């Protein structure tokens, strides 16, 4: 029998209205979860929540959120960009090693060009040769890391130097906040604008939702994909530069550890890997959540195994709660 709990007159009930509001603004429950985690952290280590801590958390969330932007944008089209970690690393390494040779500005330009080149190859592969983005970007990532290895042999003895502007962005603070926000805030505004209020952003959703329908609407999807992956490469290269300023240690694996978390931040923020659905605001909060969890676990005294496992469990719990709140699938 189908006599289900009567749920009639739902519209009037305030709880349902709140539910609907949350559904329309899925980033709000995510922020609530972030605050919950911060509260837990404060309980664990009373006194840790300070401007200094907040500044650091934001500082380290910025590069993660920027790489997450690459994932959000590519995931909108049903893709993914697994080359961002190595592109960021290569960009940082190239900038640091070229600065003593050619000066900071040309060095940074060459570093950004690394992102463009990888982006063009990715765009060609996914948009024109129709290779699955996962394979394509994995492949270009491998190729790029090989090229980086070859490159590093030629600059072992040239020394490294970090452009002052990057050090300022990466390590400086203004009114307690990391200078990185001077880069990030305009960047975030741009990405949010791009996704919501630009024709290009709309096409990203369209290509990911139904490529055939996009075609029928007159969209040449290869153009969209080409522009998208170039943009993603540029963002990754820019992130690499910022990260270079932050860590101040050019290494051949500098930004590689950000790769998996960038995917995590995007999917925690409610972006679907199958395309057509995604939110950069969610990814930003996702990046902050990851950073807070990492801090919690760094400070917790327990075996490393338990720490890693707990990290996974918290991510799962957060996303499960989030899905429960917003009922989005």
């Amino acid at each position: 029998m189908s006599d289900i709990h009567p749920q009639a007159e739902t519209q009037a009930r305030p709880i349902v209205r709140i539910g609907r509001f949350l559904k329309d603004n899925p980033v709000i429950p995510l922020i609530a979860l972030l605050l919950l985690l911060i509260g837990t952290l404060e309980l664990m280590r009373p006194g840790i929540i300070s401007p200094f801590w907040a500044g650091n958390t934001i500082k380290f969330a910025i590069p993660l959120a920027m790489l997450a932007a690459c994932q959000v944008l590519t995931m909108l089209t049903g893709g993914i960009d697994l080359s961002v970690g190595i592109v960021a690393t290569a960009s940082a390494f190239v900038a640091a090693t070229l600065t003593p040779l050619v000066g900071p500005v040309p060095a940074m330009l060459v570093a950004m060009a690394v992102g463009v080149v990888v982006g063009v190859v990715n765009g060609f592969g996914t948009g024109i040769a129709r290779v699955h983005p996962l394979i394509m970007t994995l492949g270009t990532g491998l190729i790029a890391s090989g090229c980086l290895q070859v490159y590093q042999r030629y600059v072992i003895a040239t020394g490294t130097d970090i452009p002052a502007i990057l050090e300022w962005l990466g390590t400086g603070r203004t009114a307690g906040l990391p200078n990185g926000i001077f880069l990030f805030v305009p960047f975030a505004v741009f990405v949010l604008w791009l996704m919501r209020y630009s024709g290009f952003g709309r096409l990203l959703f369209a290509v990911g939702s139904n490529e055939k329908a996009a075609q029928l609407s007159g969209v040449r999807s290869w153009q969209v994909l080409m522009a998208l992956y170039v943009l993603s490469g540029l963002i990754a290269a820019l992130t690499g530069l910022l990260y270079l300023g932050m860590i101040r240690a050019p290494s051949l694996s500098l930004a590689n550890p950000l790769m998996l978390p960038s995917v995590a931040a995007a999917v925690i923020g409610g972006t679907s890997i199958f395309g057509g659905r995604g939110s950069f605001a969610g990814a930003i909060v996702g990046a902050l959540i990851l950073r807070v969890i990492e801090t919690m676990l760094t400070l917790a005294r327990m075996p490393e195994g338990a720490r890693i496992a707990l990290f996974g469990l918290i991510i799962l719990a957060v996303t499960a709660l989030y899905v429960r709140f917003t009922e989005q699938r």
Partner: protein
Amino acid sequence: MSFVRRNAWTLGLVALMVVLLGVTRLIQPNFGVSGLESLARAALPFAFATAAMAVVVIVGGIDLSVASMMAVCSVTAAVLMQTMGGVPAILITLAVGTLMGLINGVLIVLTRVPDIVVTLAMLFVWEGTALLILNSPGGIAAPFLREAIAGSVLIHGLPKALILMAIIVAVIWVPLKRSKLGLAIYATGSDENAAFRSGVAVGRTKAAAYAVCGLFSAFGGLSLLALTGIGEPVPGPYLLAAVAAVVLGGAVLGGGIGGLLGPIIAVFILRIIRTILTLAAVDPNVTTIVEGTIMVGVVMFGAFLMMRGRSPS
């Protein structure tokens, strides 16, 4: 004709593999039985990881925790074999693997969190679990386990590792694919909504597919143990390799299409390329470039052929 068309991709991969073996022989004329044997052994963990990944990709999901589950199984077996016989240890390990997979699947179904997120979280959970079981490399492999993959069987030049893998995969996959569950796995991956409406118990099907994934991961973990003789708690580089092999092998991310044969052949292709690069003494930095280029190139070339084949003119 229709057989050829339906299996065009797999047949193409087989041809590529044969060509590559020929190239190997050309570069190193001494490449022979022992080379084949070590090739088959090296392919073992990749093949099982890929089989595991393929099953969940077919059901429309993805499992990022495959390598971590392999690590858990490898250390579990290594620890168990210190105190008990090899066979019970293997059985327990297989059960553990299946259980881990089942947990992944049930969590996906119950929480309704997307597969990639759940298994990303479980990647850490299982990795941590492996470290809790064994916080540094240790344990021991039963001697027969190491024997099982060493050398040839039946005729000289037929690597035991290859036969063992073929038997395990066939015994699990062939009946499964023919069964109602197998059909349900393909149906769910192809169109979950339509499958539900056709009467498929979608949730149970997914959970079962993940359990099979866990089972194959357990074999992957055991093969690591058989190869190295000890349990290592740190997950190896099997996740991305498995995804790449699955896609190279003709399965489609998103589900419903593909099998296990193509992906496993893709594993061998990737391994042979590795061998060729080492034999040819290619600069290791260039090796990475070549590997990436070949991976992308094969898929591009395949897509190009498919497009040519399809376009009516």
